Every structure is written in C-alpha cells, then in structure tokens.
C-alpha cells in the first residue's frame, strides 16, 4: 500500500474538524441511494430457516416503532425506507458520540496521546 507510510505522518494540527460531517453524508447517501435498491430476498440465515422450516419459531415483536426499517403511516416504500434509515443514522451517531464523550479520557494540551 503506497499510503502505508502516509498513515505514519503526524496529524497536522487543526486539520479540518468537520470531516465527520462528510462521513455522516456518506452514511446518509448509502441509505438514500443504496438501501432502496437492496435485495428484497431473505438473508442467508432467514433463507435456510424458511427452507428448513424453523422460520415458524420466530415470534413477533412485542411493540413496533420503525418495524423492519419502515415508518408506519408512510405508504411510499422508498420514503418509508429512506426516512427510517436516516433516523437510524442520526440516532446511532448521536448515541455513540454521547457514549464516547462519557467514556473518553480527557488529555491536557501538553499530554502526548
């Protein structure tokens, strides 16, 4: 990998702190562009469960909020999938940043991490 050495360069100070917005935009794009194109076929485990007859063991959820990546009340499948996916992206980013802040070690400006 030609970039292997690049990874060892020291991080330039105050290099854009907004890269995470680009990362979030990529996650949102995956939801908007790719998720609606996803294969509707059951995944590997579910397919075997159907073929082997143990899919009947599955119990329904006791409550529903955004069941199966859809928004109850929105009939359009594209909107329903995309909006519920965007909610998930936002919730996970927010939850992880909150959790990370609670857990992170604070370092003094002089302390080398």
């Amino acid at each position, binding site marked *: 990998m030609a970039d292997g050495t690049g990874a060892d360069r020291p991080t330039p100070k105050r290099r854009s702190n907004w890269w995470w917005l680009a990362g979030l935009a990529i*996650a949102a794009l995956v939801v908007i562009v790719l998720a609606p194109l*996803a294969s509707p076929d059951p995944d*590997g*485990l579910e397919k075997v469960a159907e073929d082997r007859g143990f899919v009947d063991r599955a119990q329904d959820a006791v409550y529903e909020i955004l069941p199966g990546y859809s928004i*109850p009340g929105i009939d359009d499948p594209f909107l*329903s999938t995309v909006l519920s996916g965007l909610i998930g*992206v936002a919730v996970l980013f927010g939850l*992880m*940043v909150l959790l990370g802040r609670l857990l992170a070690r604070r370092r003094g400006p002089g302390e080398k991490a």
Partner: protein
Amino acid sequence: MILASIAGPSLTGGGALQLHTPDGFLSPAVALVMWVVTAIVVGFAVRQTNRSLDERAVPLMGVTAAFIFAGQMVNFPVAPGTSGHLLGGVLAAVLLGPWAGTLVMTAVVTVQALLFQDGGLIVLGANIFIMGIVGTLGAYAVYRFMAGLLGGEARRRVPASAVASWLAVMGGALSISLMLLASNATTLETMGLILGVHALIGIGEAAITVAALLFIQATRPDLFRLRDAFDPMRLRATHGA
C-alpha cells in the same frame, strides 16, 4: 387489523426487512446464557474503552456506527432467492480498536432491536455476541495475527482485513448454528447450509470492508492513527498500567 392498515405495504411486501435472529429461534436457556456472556464481555469493553479512549476518536465512533447501520440496510444478492448484508465488525475494530469497536457494534445491534424491531429482545444478547464479540473482538484478533504474519499492519491492512472479514462472517454463522443446535431448532445438516451460504456472504463482507478501508486510506489516512493513540496495549506498555 387497524395497525396493519396504518402500517401499509412495506418495501419487502408486508414482511419487514429482517437482518438478525428473531425471538423464538433460540431456546430461553441458550438466550439467557448468551445474555450473561455478552454482559460480561461488553462490561469489560466499556471498562477498557473508558481507560483508553481518546476524545479525538469520539466523532469517528459516531460516524462508524452510523455507516455500519446504513451499510447493513443494503442486502446484496448472493444466490438465487438469497441475500446477505454487511456485518461491519472488522471495519469498526480496525478503525477504533477491539473494545470501542465492540461498543459500536453493540450500539448498532441494540438500536436495530429496540427501534427497528430487527432482531429479538430475548435473543439480543446472542445477536450482540455473534456480531459484536465473535465478529468484532474475535475477528480483530485474526486481523492482527494476519497482519503480523504478512509483514505489518500499515502495509498489509487490506489482505489482513479481507481474511478477518470473511472469518468474522463464518464465525458468526458458526455461532448462530451452534446456538440453534443447542436450542434443538436445527440439525447438523442445517448447520452446513448456514455455513455454506455465509461463505458467499463473507466475500461481500470482505469486499465492502476493504473498499471502506481503501477509501479512508486514500482520503484521511491519519484516521488510522487515532486507534493507536488509545490502543490499550500500547498504553499498558508506556504507562505500566
């Protein structure tokens, strides 16, 4: 009935998109044992992360969790009538280290169960074990071993992560197979079928993981340094803790 009419048609035609093991697949005893094991390991991961996490890595944790959630929504075809989807454990662990990676996967799987009714609540411990522990912690050990074997992580990140990704999916498939066997839900023959289809899904996992890592390497290679900044092993070595 009223609920059904309000919900309307969903993308998969009435059936909701299900990515993870639902309640009922596993016996209560197996589900309980997996809850206990998972709680202990995730508790340890919280402690390790708390000891070592660098605050500069916090936004990366958020983005990684968001991206893996999004990526898991994209089922790709692997065989007639069968799809697979991203797991993401290796991606999380390579970027964040094994402990923070496990917490990210735990968060993804938990939100999917609580908010999206994907994956059961009784078997949530088992689902976290499969994806956040076997597919993340276990796969990270494979990743480091492979990288060391091939001549160092910086130069051999791609092949090491490809092998670890494939094995992460196979390890997850083996775990759920054994849990199903222990729950008297399946036979050994079924285990073969589950492993066989996941051998194909693992190729997709490796491709997506490698693509994501190459993209980061091309755009922000410094993000790879964040993990080393809070690698507990390095901390232990330098601080003697």
